[in-house]
């Protein structure tokens, strides 16, 4: 399942829901949570705004999830990505992969977040003390 939303998500509640949905079939669940950092490229970040391409975003996330389910035997998977204005320490993205064994779950989770970062149409804009700037790919450090 995929979701794009402005509101926050509860990592614990999402993991618990997937655990219940697995109904005994999964032996492992791996999750990745992406957060807004307070400093990027040496500058303090007051706010981060996530822009996206409604429609294409959902298609891209569904394709990534389907590809993960083709490559690995998953019992459940989830991608949630937030859009709009976010503050440091806010949740940005949640990816969960559940499988019979941990290796498949680890690999599928990593694949989904890595692919999302290069293929899903989201763009980050930071508000710094000096003004705003668009984040460049690979600039985060």
């Amino acid at each position, binding site marked *: 399942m995929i979701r794009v939303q402005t509101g926050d998500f509860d990592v614990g509640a999402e993991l618990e829901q997937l655990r219940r949905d697995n109904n005994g079939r999964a032996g492992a669940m791996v999750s990745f949570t*992406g957060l807004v950092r307070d400093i990027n490229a040496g500058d303090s970040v007051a706010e981060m705004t*996530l*822009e*996206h*391409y409604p*429609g*294409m975003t959902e*298609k891209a996330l569904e394709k990534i999830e389907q590809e993960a389910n083709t490559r690995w035997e998953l019992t459940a998977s989830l991608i949630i*990505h937030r859009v709009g204005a976010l503050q440091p320490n806010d949740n*940005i*993205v949640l990816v969960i992969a559940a499988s019979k064994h941990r290796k498949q779950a680890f690999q599928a989770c990593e694949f989904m*977040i890595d692919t*999302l*970062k*290069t*293929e*899903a*149409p*989201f*763009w*980050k*804009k930071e508000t710094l003390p000096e003004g705003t700037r*668009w*984040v*460049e*790919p690979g*600039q985060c450090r």
Partner: protein
Amino acid sequence: MVHLRYFASLREQLGTGEEQIELPSNITDISGLTRWLQTREEPWKSALADSRLHVAINQEIARPDAPVTDGDEVAWFPPVTGG
């Protein structure tokens, strides 16, 4: 009509996020459409000259030689930075 969309830093540079145009009869593909938009006055020429821009047709990533036809939605945007 063709629905054109621009996102993120490109949208800000161009000062518009979307528009509807009649597809000129001599334009058949993405690169032709991009060149046609670049004949507008600045900032169109320089903003669309960025070789890192991606293009999508009907919300799927497309190559510069992909055909454009009436009714399509075509989007230009910078490299993505989500996650």
